[in-house]
């Protein structure tokens, strides 16, 4: 058998610019091997013995009434436990109108077809449409006015692990294996459906296969339905979406429409105007906000209005920087349109409009790294392949959230980091191990992380980039408290004063003399010692630092002007996140954010059939997501700026990518493509003179 072990450290990625910035330069993702070999078990992988399988009955059309449903036939299918219809109207493709519970997935499938539902389709609205804007008068002091409409499609989260919950019901207690971004919020309502106090069940999510915001919905309908069935039959229950259901009914980034009427002067100064935005929220009541303007640029006085538009589609959920990529796409492209109209270089114009001095230094670095000097003025190329350069910017504030932590030193010399909050694939597990190892003064190899379990110390749900920033404060405090207790006990054994001892690389030192090895010291303890910490005003003051995350991205691409196909050459992503904990997972977050952003820019589009309202691409073939051959060289740059402390990193790197790409395409072909995704036909339309 092949060697499946991987060292916890390995050579550095070849990005010298990022060397020596992070607390750990060479640590590998702790669970990397488990994930690629499949030994990591996700909630979806847990199929408890004697379990009941559950699935929703869903509306297949955009809007329809179920005229007849053969519940009897479905109930009669061998292995079916129950069929429950809760409603007859489906308002979007994928809306549940009931559920089936059965002994096997095969029985579920048979029962679904035995239902033989006859649907009466009704008219369905499939998109946001073109709502009219009534704009105010032109802004004062403008030489010119730019009026433009920018649109973005519905993007689905497409988490690799689909939504769902597996419940191991053991009579008077239960373990809930949830695929969730909130170990603790996933308990909400479960006590009610399980008929058990929270003290009798716990949520476990050691590994979560992506969420991007879509798994911030508490127990979710999947969890609550599985819970009800588990309680009713007193058996384990399993309910996970399949790939189509994942596209249809687990949230999305809502579509957007941004209509700007903006005044500017001959020198490119923007003097204000009006921005009207609409968000396509499906049947939901809200959640379609578009962050435009971003407030990163001085655009004069902007009058902003927003309205959500309903149609026959699944509702939105938070999606990695909700509202931001849509807004940034409109804002960056709008700025480039003003720059081009006034004959100014977009870089120079941003240096002028950007409110943040630090970002100006980032622009300078980014321009150098991407080779901005090679950029030709917009619309001046006539060759088949046209080169384009573009810029986008980003920012993210730190939000406070409740977080506790516990660190334990065991007599066998292992250190356990305990945090109930989850690692949704970001590298949280690895980051917390590094923070603790460093603060205690022990090698990373002795640190083990217990994570994603509601019986462990509480932590935040992973939304708003709050997990690492807040949990790390609790960890630092816990490690300091633990060190104090530990050294007191060792000092007592050695008969020295506690203050005289230090831990260095695991060795117990007095001045420069090694008093004990780590192993000796831990063995001498006799029993485990632990320290606790929380994110509080006190730990915040002591450890948190100041400033917020920001960044810029530069894109270099080529457009094939005969086919409209875009080839991305390079994306330079400069990003600050304060004190970098783990270099590799930090770079990976930035790269991942860029990939999600470029996929949004070029490909993704949840498409509802205009006649039936059914999604025509509910799979990963027709729903296009960027693949390996679509990848540019992505160069993450960890920026050591004015920020201190640990700062958000999950969301900011995905904000500017689509806007920067759209700007680069504009630069290459001479007219803006104002609709995402930047499909070849749209690019051709733009080249041929705004036929769109």
């Amino acid at each position: 058998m092949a060697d499946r072990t991987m060292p916890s450290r390995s050579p550095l990625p070849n990005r010298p610019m990022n060397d020596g910035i992070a607390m750990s330069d060479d640590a590998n993702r702790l669970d990397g091997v488990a994930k690629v070999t499949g030994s990591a078990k996700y909630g979806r992988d847990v199929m408890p013995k004697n379990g009941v399988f559950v699935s929703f009955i869903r509306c297949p059309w955009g809007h329809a009434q179920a005229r007849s449903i053969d519940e009897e036939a479905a109930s009669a299918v061998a292995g079916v436990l129950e069929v429950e219809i809760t409603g007859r109207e489906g308002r979007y493709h994928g809306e549940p109108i009931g559920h089936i519970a059965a002994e096997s997935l095969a029985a579920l499938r048979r029962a679904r077809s035995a239902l033989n539902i006859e649907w009466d389709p009704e008219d369905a609205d499939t998109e946001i449409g073109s709502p009219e804007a009534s704009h105010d008068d032109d802004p004062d002091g403008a030489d010119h006015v730019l009026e433009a409409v920018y649109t973005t499609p519905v993007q689905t989260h497409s988490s690799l692990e689909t939504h769902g919950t597996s419940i191991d019901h053991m009579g008077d207690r239960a373990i809930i294996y949830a695929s969730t971004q909130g170990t603790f919020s996933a308990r909400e309502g479960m006590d009610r459906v399980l008929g058990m106090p929270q003290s009798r069940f716990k949520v476990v999510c050691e590994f979560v296969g992506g969420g991007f915001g879509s798994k911030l919905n508490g127990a979710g309908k999947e969890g609550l339905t599985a819970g009800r069935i588990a309680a009713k039959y007193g058996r384990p229950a399993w309910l996970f979406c399949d790939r189509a259901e994942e596209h249809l009914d687990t949230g999305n980034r809502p579509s957007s429409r941004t209509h700007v009427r903006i005044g500017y002067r001959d020198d490119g100064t923007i003097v204000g105007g009006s921005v009207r935005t609409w968000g396509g929220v499906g049947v939901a009541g809200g959640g379609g906000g578009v962050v435009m303007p971003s407030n990163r640029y001085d655009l004069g006085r902007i009058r902003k209005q927003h309205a959500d538009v309903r149609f026959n589609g699944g509702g939105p959920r938070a999606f990695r920087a909700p509202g931001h990529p849509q807004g940034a796409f409109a804002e960056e492209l709008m700025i480039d349109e003003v720059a081009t109209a006034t004959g100014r270089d977009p870089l120079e114009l941003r240096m002028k409009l950007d409110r943040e001095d630090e970002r100006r230094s980032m622009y300078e670095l980014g321009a150098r790294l991407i080779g901005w000097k090679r950029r030709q003025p917009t619309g001046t190329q006539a060759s088949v392949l046209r080169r384009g350069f573009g810029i986008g910017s980003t920012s993210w504030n730190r939000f406070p959230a409740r977080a506790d932590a516990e660190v334990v030193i065991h007599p066998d010399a292992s250190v356990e980091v305990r945090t109930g909050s989850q690692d949704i694939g970001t590298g949280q597990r690895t980051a917390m191990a590094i923070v603790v190892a460093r603060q205690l003064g022990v090698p990373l190899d002795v640190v083990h992380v217990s994570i994603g379990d509601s019986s462990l110390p509480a932590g935040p749900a992973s939304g708003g980039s709050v997990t690492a920033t807040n949990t790390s404060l609790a960890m630092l405090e816990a490690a300091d408290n633990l060190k104090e207790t530990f050294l007191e006990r060792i000092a007592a054994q050695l008969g020295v004063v506690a203050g005289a001892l230090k831990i260095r690389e695991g060795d117990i030192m007095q001045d420069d003399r090694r008093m004990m090895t780590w192993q000796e010291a831990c063995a001498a303890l006799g029993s485990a010692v632990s320290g606790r910490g929380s994110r509080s005003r006190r730990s915040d003051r002591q450890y948190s630092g100041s400033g917020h995350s920001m960044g810029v991205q530069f894109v270099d691409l080529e457009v094939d002007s005969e086919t409209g196909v875009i080839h991305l050459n390079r994306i330079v992503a400069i990003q600050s996140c304060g004190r970098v904990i783990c270099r590799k997972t930090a770079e990976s977050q930035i790269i991942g954010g860029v990939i999600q952003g470029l996929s949004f820019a070029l490909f993704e589009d949840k498409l509802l059939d205009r006649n039936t309202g059914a999604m025509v691409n509910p799979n990963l073939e027709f729903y296009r997501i960027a693949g390996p051959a679509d990848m540019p060289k992505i160069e993450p740059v960890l920026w050591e700026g004015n920020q201190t402390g640990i700062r958000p990193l999950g969301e900011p790197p995905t904000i500017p990518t689509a806007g920067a790409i759209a700007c680069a395409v504009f630069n290459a072909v001479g007219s803006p493509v104002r609709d995402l995704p930047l499909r070849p036909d749209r690019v051709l339309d733009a080249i041929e003179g705004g036929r769109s």
Partner: protein
Amino acid sequence: MKPFSLARPRDFAGAGKLAKDRRFRLPVIKAGGMDVVDHLKEGLIEPDLLIDVLRIDDQPEIREADGAFHIHANATLANIAASRSIARRAPVVAQCCASAATPQVRNVATAAGNLLQRPRCWYYRNSQFDCLKKGGHRCFAFDGENAYHAIFGDGPCHIVHPSNLAIGLSVCNASVRLTGSDRDAVSLADLFHMPDRGLLSEHNLKTGEVVTEIHFEPRSTSAFYAIKHKQSFDWPLVAAAAALELDGDRIESATVTAGAVAPVPWALPHVGEALVGVSLDDDTALRRACATSTRDARPMSDNEYKVRLLPVAIRRAILKAAGREVMS
């Protein structure tokens, strides 16, 4: 999925017999199984017998005899793409295989399976749409989401032919060898039919006919060019295959077939004729000849862009065949 029997015949003749076996309602042949398994999962077919032919290796995957190439039905796209001899003597075939799908798909996909795979129309692939191709009464693409559908043909079904290999082979005078009936070969051109000649299937094989080999002739000045939106894991928006005979820079004869624009590999004999005598150095003439490709095009609501892409793909296939820079 309904339970089915699985048979593993030792040779293609055995497979042909099973395919005709009256005891079974719907026997289905499976090679690499990629398309067959997709159909099973989506409930598009419910066979009671699956005839697995993948292990039949009675011949080498690729051989040359009588000045022609003979490809085993089970040769993988990856191996065809990797064959030095095909790359040198029939580059269009190597290239069309190399450009299909992804490395994982190409390692499993067989030549016969690729030719006979079913269309990718998203209404066809989704079991909830009872479209014409599935015995229903309506083509949902006609007035629906048809960005990836045909710009040629009169319907009533508007699929595009899915096989890259078929496009490449169609400029190499190809035929498929058969077993299981009274004929032992059919030309590639006769293998497929337009929707007005039958909707439920795209090919003309009779029950019990199994493909054993594919024959084609070398075309040393040939090339395949696909325009793709996404470069990984995606289908061409438009593709073209061209085989040329050159006299210096002058085209003496040309065979051109377009892909992803019609329900069958779309042979364009009049483009071939228009190309005769054109010098590759005369780009205006070359473009003019390529532009004739769209003469009979009748795009639908969302695929007019294909009309713009087709002459580009053909011109690039020609330049590529001649070893010239395509982005000029």
